[in-house]
């Protein structure tokens, strides 16, 4: 929420500043590997441009309401706009890149389930 405040200033640097929010519920093995996978992808594609905030819903369940969290782990890209959501443990790097708009969607707007672009 706070990060969206300096909106006017943020707009110009939209493509360079990445504000990511990762929702988990406790440090489950899946949550740990999700964070590792995400960090690895960010280091490779967004080095120095990103910020990851990890929100543990077990500590503060009410935070699930704001971003309408149902599935876990969920990553919300607050910036750059538009807001994007991806779910899963980020083990499918291609899908993560597509979900974060770092790679154009193959063909149609909707990816074919299971159809890997790599």
């Amino acid at each position, binding site marked *: 929420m706070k990060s969206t405040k300096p909106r006017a200033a943020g707009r110009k640097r939209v493509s360079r500043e990445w504000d990511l929010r990762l929702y988990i519920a406790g440090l489950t093995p899946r949550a740990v590997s999700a964070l590792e996978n995400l960090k690895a992808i960010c280091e490779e594609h967004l080095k120095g441009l990103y910020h990851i905030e990890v929100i543990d819903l077990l500590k503060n369940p009410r935070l699930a309401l704001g971003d309408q*969290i149902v599935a*876990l782990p*969920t990553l919300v890209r607050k910036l750059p706009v538009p807001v994007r959501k991806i779910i899963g443990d980020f083990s499918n790097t291609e899908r993560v890149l597509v979900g974060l708009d770092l790679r154009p969607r193959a063909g149609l707007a909707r990816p074919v389930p299971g159809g890997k672009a790599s």
Partner: protein
Amino acid sequence: MAKHRSTAVRGREKRIGSGGLGKALPKCPTGIAGLDEITGGGLPLGRPTLVCGRAGCGKTLLAMEFLVRGARDFGDPGVYMSFEETEAELAANVASLGFDIPGLVRRKKLALDYVRVARNETEETGEYDLEGLFVRLGSAIDAIGAKRVVLDTIESLFASLPNDGILRAELRRLFSWLKNKGMTAVITGEQAHVDQLTRQGLEEFVSDCVIHLDHRVVNQVATRRLRIIKYRGTSHGTNEYPAMIDEGGLSILPITVLELSVRATRERVTSGVAPLDAMLGGGYWRGSSVLMTGTAGTGKTSFAVAFADSVCRRGGRCLYLSFEESPSQVARNMASIGFQLTRHIRSGRLLFNSVRPTSYGLESHLVNIHALVKRFRPETVIMDPITGLGGMGNTDEIKAMLTRIIDYFKNERITAVFTSLTDAGSSFERSEVGISTLMDTWIILQMVEAANERRRILSILKSRGMAHSHQTREFRFNSRGIHLLDFNGGPAPSGEASRRSERRS
């Protein structure tokens, strides 16, 4: 009865649903009119119940009423998790039923959570689970100490989240998690085809109780029905029960649950016509049903009114359901033969309910009659005439409805008089809707032509459990009421003779 029993069970076994194999399954009352009767006390306590049906069948209303009545009448706080409507929409939808959702939320009796998952907006990048939903639900339950939960309609998740396999496994986990928490849950599911109950086969996960709602149009009249498809560990009615949504919410009419165990009384009530009482050996049995058939103008209404008048004069209450005439019309006509109904209406002993049969469906009539009887508590009900309902559905439906009504009256020990119009020319013994077998007493009014005069005659075709007269009697009206005369089939006693014989009777 059933309610008391279940409360006792509930007290003994405590709240949290313990072992499902127990003899009497603990129940959680819904407070919805009629539903607790047909389920023998309510939904399975501490277990999920699936409520399914097509769009617009009343699933959301049933679910919401379950929570609101639970919070208001049974002190059980509840969580409503909606996947389709926002909190504001939900509150607005039921505000007209007098459900104060914002108030209940303020008093922490109710928690609403609108879960919005945009359709296919999320990219799936690997394994995931629905722990977020669990966390939300869990925190809402803990915040208000909820005992009841509604998930409406959780199937929408299938349209929004990828990977059906994960979803199915997670839903299974969710339902058993709810069970472990001891939540009595209502899960709604939408029926898309006739041959399946829910789109995603939720009935496979929710195995304790499945309720089906139906809203269909028969003869241009919309009717709602409810059926219990499955209720593990409980004997339940398997019929389709008529249901209705009115300003009080949902009501279900369970009345075919006639346990032919109604205690018959030995008490008699006067028919309001002394010679007729004599013919019946002392009047009608209290709590019996009386059918009065006859062609047009034979005086069916007059006999019914004579009965109503005598009940009111004794200080009893009578509910008069008129399907053809307005109250003032009946009152005016009957004043001409000496029955002053206006007086009874004013004193509150006689309640008139005039409504055109076609104003609404059979089920609605049934519900209305129920509501009226519940409120007014009459000892006598008159339905004049039941043939008016003829245009409302096919014979079977009308018969079913009348059966319910008669059973209901019997259970309530209400003496009921039904009038029925016979078509001129058709055999009077063939009563229109084939309900004569349900009646205890059947009186036939006829018009015969003899010696250039139309004369009205009365006979008792049957009267269960009484040594009734087999005579045919002539009757006449004058300004002081109904008078029975001997009928000898011969020429009418003319002038003076006629008046003399009138005085005699």
